[in-house]
């Protein structure tokens, strides 16, 4: 059978069916073939709220498409600055099928990254390039940017997205790609984040870094290096689940946080916090009369976090009847409010 096919001359229903079989990266490449192809991809790919755009600005700045039906995310276009660096050095071997094409009126060089398999574009100004390809992909898939992954050089992304679209960024990952993340940048990023779903801070800020403001409301908070976090930060947090490692918090400070939960003002469902030294008596100070020993094993499941396994612990009953389990280890304090995600 021939390997050519006059795609633009088939009936509309067939075209829709063909487009359904193409992966997001292939759709982007097809859309770049001609103006008519771009319009066809845009029209025939159904607009869906399940599709969201991801923007990763780290070691490989790229735009991805996330399709929530199967929870898969696909990288569709990458963007690099410094044409010479990539094509006049050994890096050239990394790319195949190099060609020039036009994206949103800009003539650029494009190639397929041998390792990852998706197309990367090369720009003189990478910031401009990333903006252009993000706009292009958002427009093509008629969706907005919901996930961003940034490093120290890309704090502009959060402001840019906030100005560009009405819907907020749902998920933000602050990477430790550069571990000398500057204090003003992290402050700026955390302050401009209007997220609703997940905030993951992998970055390790400078030793004296503090965040003297209130965090935005977020469902899941994960911090890999939380030494800068104060008990005031914790109490101010409007969060459902959190996992914080390497904090400098003491058991007494966790006790203050626990007492805050006891007042019933928090929507917190679970937390896992690594403390300097776990002291059970200090953690349950002033609530001793409300706890009872729990023996055995219990698994707690919640969205966006790994399962929490309790091997023994103490149940705490709040005045309004809500029960939680707390487990205090040598360095880790685990807390979860029942029932869990599965109503268990």
């Amino acid at each position: 059978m021939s390997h050519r096919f006059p795609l633009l001359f088939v009936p509309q229903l067939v075209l829709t069916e063909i487009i359904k079989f193409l992966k997001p990266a292939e759709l982007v490449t097809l859309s770049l073939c001609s103006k008519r192809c771009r319009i066809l991809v845009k029209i025939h790919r159904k607009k869906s709220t399940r599709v969201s755009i991801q923007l990763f600005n780290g070691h490989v700045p790229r735009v991805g498409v996330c399709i929530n039906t199967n929870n898969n995310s696909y990288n569709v276009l990458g963007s690099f600055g410094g044409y010479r660096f990539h094509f006049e050095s050994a890096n050239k071997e990394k790319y195949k099928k190099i060609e020039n094409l036009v994206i949103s009126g800009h003539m650029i060089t494009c190639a397929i990254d041998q390792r990852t398999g998706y197309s990367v574009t090369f720009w003189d100004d990478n910031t401009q390039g990333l903006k252009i390809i993000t706009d292009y992909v958002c427009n093509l898939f008629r969706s907005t940017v919901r996930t961003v992954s940034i490093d120290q050089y890309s704090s502009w992304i959060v402001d840019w997205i906030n100005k560009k679209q009405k819907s907020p960024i749902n998920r933000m990952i602050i990477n430790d790609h550069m571990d000398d993340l500057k204090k003003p940048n992290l402050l700026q990023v955390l302050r401009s984040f209007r997220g609703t779903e997940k905030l993951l801070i992998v970055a390790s800020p400078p030793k004296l870094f503090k965040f003297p403001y209130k965090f935005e409301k977020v469902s899941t908070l994960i911090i890999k290096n939380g030494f800068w976090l104060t008990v005031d930060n914790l109490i101010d947090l409007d969060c459902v689940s959190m996992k914080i490692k390497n904090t400098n918090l003491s058991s007494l400070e966790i006790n203050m946080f626990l007492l805050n939960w006891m007042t019933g003002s928090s929507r917190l469902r679970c937390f896992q916090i690594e403390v300097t030294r776990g002291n059970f008596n200090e953690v349950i100070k002033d609530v001793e009369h409300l706890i009872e020993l729990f023996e055995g094993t219990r698994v707690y499941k919640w969205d966006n976090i790994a399962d929490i396994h309790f091997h023994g612990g103490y149940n705490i009953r709040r005045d309004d009847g809500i029960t939680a389990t707390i487990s205090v280890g040598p360095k880790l304090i685990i807390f979860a409010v029942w029932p869990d995600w599965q109503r268990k």
Partner: protein
Amino acid sequence: MTSPASSSEVKYLIESSEGNTFDVSGAALRQSNTFNAMFLNIGADGPIPFTDYNEATLKKVFEYCEHSVNEENYSGPKHQDDLSKWDLNFFNEMDQKMFIDVINASNFLDIERLTSYCCERIARMLRGKNTQEMIKVITLPTAEELEAKQKVEEKKAAAAKKVAEKAAETAEKTETLEELPVQQLVQTTRNKLTRKYLSFSNE
């Protein structure tokens, strides 16, 4: 049109664009949603006219339907790697024109399984390609071809412009003649003739 016996053995006559007829089993034909919607309940008195498609295409489509009669109910597209040897041969035997005709006929007859396999096959043709390669596959004109086409069009336009200008000039001349009233024309001719006669008589 139909032969009696059990419903699975019912045969239907199909008419192609050439006017030729051939028969197809009811079981095979029932894979077509178009047929189900149009003829299944009310039946057909004569051959069923699918006259937009030629005999070869229709036979190819119904060959597929006959083959897949005993397969389990269609539940979404199969991956090409899961296709049987028969399926692969079926597709590989077709040339480009036949493939396009089969897709169009399958789309018209609304045979989900066949349409879906054909579409996935086309999608596979585009897999791993960059834009230049895709342009070749989907037979879009390349930049050079577009440029050449534009030049030809420009030449055509220039030639057409020249023809139009000439036509306009001719029309202008005709209009000047047409604009003179008949009496004036007669008078002018008479004057000319008188002058000629006078000059002749003077001589």
